């Protein structure tokens, strides 16, 4: 289909050009052939006419010699008057060309006419005297005209009826005699010549099919003509008038003037014809040859027809050839198209058509083959690369996960420290970054927090960050100054830091009870301080230099005091240097603004608001660096008290005996808060220890780590101790009091604890409420 279309298009483009070219060639050929034929015909016509005229002239001249010689003989007196009859008789007898001959004398004084005349009568030649009363030759053309003009004269041809019964012409030659010493005109010598030979000569000139030769006399009378009706009846001029061809009259006039030349004439029946005429000078006649154009060019017409037919056949063949050849040449294209589709589907080894030629198709095939080869190589490379990349990416992802895993991300991290609300976030860029933050309690009141940014990115940065963080954890101590901690980390990092990496770092230790904040900066961005009820502002801090650069750098600790409601906001330069598509940085100003705009003063919402602002700024631009924020809100003390009281009425611990220390601490503090005497602590602690142990051992399977709620409160003069667990239902009060008389080793395990509790307290109650074991112990206090 496509192939046909293409070959059709080629043909339709070529065809007009071929036709035009063909037409031009045929036309040129036709014109050339035509002019060549015309030239050839003209030359032929001229030659034919000249040949005919020549052969006529030869005979005519020969005939003319006879009277001329006779005239000389008469003048020289070598012929006697009496012998003339006999002489003429012999003359006619000996010259078959001559029909008759006469010697017409000019009349003598007696006006007597004397003209010996010999003529053919059948096969015999007879002689008479022409001159008679009834035949006054003096006024005959053959005598009168040469006599008057004193020169030889060929009469107009005439039909000699009754005599020769043939077309004759008389040649008259004047002769002279010497009389009294004077040369006087004496008469006319004639010969009558039959023009049969002449008409035969002219008629035998065959010109093509309907062309012919014609002879006209001096008066324009047709002497020979293919149409016998014209002979002797018509002149060329009457025919011109009859046929209404004025041009013929002009040609006729030219002919009888003795001129020669070519002309074109339109004749009835014959049509357009070429006419050449040539005079027969001696007689004053003229010969014309007529070449009908139709026949002149007949061969050409025939040839043209043949050429047209051949051209049509050639054209048809050409079309067939072209469509076949083009079709055949383009057939591989279809196969290529098929192969290309197969290649596109992923089969690079698709079979290609075999091309034996060394043309563009071969080139195409080579290109295809090359493409296939290259594609195969490329795709396999791509696969390898992709695999490698995927591996790297997965490693990077793991690295990132590890990095992220190092960072605390449980919020709130220290629910027991009511003075602090803390939130942090590290949104890493695509690549593993070197940001870090960390916070941990150095003791029950001192919170250590830090933020850092390792130079560079990727695995090295994250490793460096991990090292830094590990150093921080291991070196941080409430007894050390922040400057000391940094110095120590710095000197450790500087060791073996061949890759010259460094980390900007900010560390702070907040005494949660007092709000005292010690901090030290190692080249990190200044944190933002949001004073309660005031606008956010940057810390005015010593910049310091990043860690890992100079191991003997001396850092200085600084100090500030946070009041309730104050908040400190730390961040890395990933935030302030976040770029949008027009390379505008988020900047410190925008950071302050976005913090101020934020409606909430709670760290988590603040951090999230700031992140939203950054994202809004960056818009579609890719995040290029880690975004790390850490915000710590130091709460008011009165808030702490009310909330603290409520909060500290109970404690939730793991069902682990190890938790007893924590429980003891809490109990002591709780008792002191309740304003109970310190000495009560030992008893209460013992009771709680026994109750807790019971639950751990009996309510739960060993190794289980479930929560146990412990609350301690006063109801009037009663101290109420309540323990709640979700373990299996276990009523310690249902146990019989142990037999204390039996040595401890032999007694049943358990039972002793509850016995002790009962002894030390005033009431022990057990209840199972909604799958929860509730043990309530009461003791009267002062």
């Amino acid at each position, binding site marked *: 289909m496509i192939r046909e279309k293409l070959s059709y298009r080629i043909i339709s483009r070529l065809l007009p050009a071929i036709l035009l070219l063909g037409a031009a060639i045929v036309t040129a050929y036709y014109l050339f052939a035509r002019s060549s034929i015309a030239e050839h015909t003209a030359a032929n016509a001229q030659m034919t006419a000249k040949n005919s005229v020549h052969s006529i002239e030869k005979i005519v001249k020969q005939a003319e010699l006879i009277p001329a010689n006779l005239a000389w003989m008469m003048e020289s007196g070598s012929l006697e008057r009496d012998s003339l009859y006999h002489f003429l008789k012999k003359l006619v007898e000996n010259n078959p060309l001559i029909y008759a001959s006469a010697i017409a004398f000019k009349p003598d004084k007696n006006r007597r006419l004397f003209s010996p005349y010999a003529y053919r009568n059948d096969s015999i030649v007879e002689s008479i005297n022409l001159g008679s009363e*009834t035949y*006054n030759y003096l*006024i*005959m*053309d053959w005598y*009168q*005209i040469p006599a*008057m*003009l004193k020169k030889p*004269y060929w*009469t*107009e041809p005439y*039909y000699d*009826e009754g005599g020769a019964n043939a077309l004759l012409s008389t040649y008259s030659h004047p002769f002279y005699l010497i009389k009294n010493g004077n040369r006087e005109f004496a008469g006319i010598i004639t010969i009558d010549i039959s023009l049969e030979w002449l008409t035969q000569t002219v008629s035998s000139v065959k010109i093509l099919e309907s062309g012919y030769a014609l002879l006209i006399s*001096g*008066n*324009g*009378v047709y002497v020979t003509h293919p149409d016998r009706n014209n002979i*002797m*009846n*018509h*002149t*060329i*001029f*009457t*025919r011109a*008038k*009859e046929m209404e061809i004025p041009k013929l*009259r002009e040609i*006729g*006039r030219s002919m*009888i003037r003795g001129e020669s030349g070519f002309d074109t004439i339109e004749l009835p029946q014959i049509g357009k014809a070429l006419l050449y005429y040539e005079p027969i000078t001696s007689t004053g006649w003229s010969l014309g040859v007529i070449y009908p154009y139709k026949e002149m060019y007949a061969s050409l017409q025939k040839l043209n027809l043949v050429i047209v037919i051949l051209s049509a056949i050639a054209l048809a063949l050409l079309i067939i050839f072209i469509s076949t050849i083009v079709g055949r040449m383009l057939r591989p294209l279809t196969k290529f198209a098929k192969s290309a589709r197969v290649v596109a589907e992923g089969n690079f080894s698709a079979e290609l058509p075999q091309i034996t030629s060394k043309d563009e198709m071969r080139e195409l095939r080579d290109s295809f083959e090359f493409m296939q080869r290259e594609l195969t190589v490329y795709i396999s490379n791509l696969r390898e690369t992709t695999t490698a990349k995927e591996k790297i990416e997965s490693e990077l992802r793991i690295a990132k996960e590890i990095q992220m895993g190092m960072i605390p991300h449980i919020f709130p991290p220290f629910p027991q420290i009511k003075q602090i609300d803390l939130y942090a976030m590290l949104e890493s860029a695509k690549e593993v970054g070197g940001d870090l933050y960390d916070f941990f309690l150095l003791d029950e009141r001192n919170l250590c927090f830090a933020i850092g940014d390792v130079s560079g990115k990727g695995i090295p940065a994250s490793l460096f960050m991990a090292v830094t963080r590990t150093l921080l954890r291991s070196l941080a101590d409430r007894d050390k100054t922040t400057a000391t901690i940094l110095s120590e980390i710095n000197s450790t990092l500087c060791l073996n830091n061949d890759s010259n990496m460094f980390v900007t770092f900010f560390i702070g230790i907040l005494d949660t009870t007092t709000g005292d904040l010690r901090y030290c900066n190692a080249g990190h961005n200044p944190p933002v301080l949001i004073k309660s009820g005031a606008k956010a502002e940057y810390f005015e801090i010593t910049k310091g230099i990043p860690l890992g650069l100079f191991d003997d750098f001396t850092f200085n600790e600084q100090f500030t005091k946070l009041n309730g409601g104050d908040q400190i906001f730390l961040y890395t330069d990933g935030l302030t240097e976040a770029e949008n598509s027009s390379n505008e940085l988020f900047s410190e100003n925008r950071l302050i603004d976005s913090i101020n705009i934020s409606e909430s003063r709670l760290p988590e919402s603040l951090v999230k608001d700031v992140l939203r602002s950054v994202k809004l700024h960056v818009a579609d631009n890719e995040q290029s660096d880690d975004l790390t924020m850490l915000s710590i809100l130091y709460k008011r003390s009165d808030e702490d008290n009310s909330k603290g009281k409520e909060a500290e009425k109970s404690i939730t611990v793991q069902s682990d005996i190890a938790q007893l220390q924590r429980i003891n601490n809490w109990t002591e503090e709780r008792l002191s808060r309740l304003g109970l005497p310190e000495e009560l602590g030992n008893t209460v602690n013992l009771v709680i220890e026994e109750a807790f142990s019971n639950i751990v051992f009996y309510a739960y399977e060993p190794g289980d780590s479930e929560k146990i709620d412990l609350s301690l409160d006063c109801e009037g003069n009663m101290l109420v101790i309540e323990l709640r667990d979700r373990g299996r239902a276990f009523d310690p009060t249902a146990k019989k009091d142990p037999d204390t008389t039996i040595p401890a080793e032999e007694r049943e395990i358990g039972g002793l604890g509850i016995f002790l509790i009962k002894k030390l307290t005033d009431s022990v109650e057990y209840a199972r409420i909604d799958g929860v074991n509730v043990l309530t112990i009461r003791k009267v206090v002062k």
Partner: protein
Amino acid sequence: MRIPKSFLIALLLLTFIQNISAQERSKIVFTPQWQPQAQFAGYYIALEQGYYSQAGLDVTIKHPSATSDIIKILTMGEADIVSAFLIHGMKAQRRGLPIKHFAQMLQHSSLMIVSRKESGIESVEDLGGRKLGIWSSGFDDLIFAMLEERKIDVRIVRILNTVNLFLEGGVDAMTVMHYNEYNTIVNCGVNPEELNTFFMRDLGLNVPEDALYCLESKYKENPEVMEAFAEATLKGWEYAANHKDYAIDLVVRHMKNANLPNNRVHQRWMLERVLEAIDPGEKPVGRGKLSKQDLQLVTSVIN
């Protein structure tokens, strides 16, 4: 004009039937003064169309030879009626020949002198001292009358009947008939504009030409026959005027029968000129009649 074959056959049959009763008809031999040509088309038609037989005439047309004297033919009794120049007839009558003019066919003179323009002859006066070809057979009375009247001395060259001497330049001028030799000259390739023509009719000599003559005795015997002949002939001419092609066909046939060179072009010319000459035109005379003025003119020429 073509006559349907069936009509011609019917006509022939009719002629045949009429011939049976020819004994009762007047037998007429008519001889024109020259060989067959369109000059006599009217006679051929009158015969062919049966006008003569309708008039009770049994006419035979018998042409003379080129050299015959027409008046002699009449007086010798070789013909009952001849056509002859009025001037010839009158001269014969002068000589006392008993011939009777009973019809005047051609009212106008066609005689003229023609010369080549290159000869410098611009008027008849220029003919003085120049060679003028004149037929040996006569027709020269008017020319001589004209030359005499104008006192022009020309060198007369008698010629038989061709125009060849003129064409060859043997004579400077030549007397010709407008309807015949003039056109022959043109038909020999001389263009009319190369010729100067001097018509006798323009020189005060518009003498009528062809007239019909019979012997006086015959006329006295039976004038109705002669008149009927003239009448039928005029009818023939009228038919010729309306059927020129037919007339020419007929003429050519007669010429062919007489083995004469012929062509329709020349015969048409002649027919048309002769028809013009038959029409009296401004002359106060009927067709076929001779006016008194013309009679006087001819008489004066002869004298």
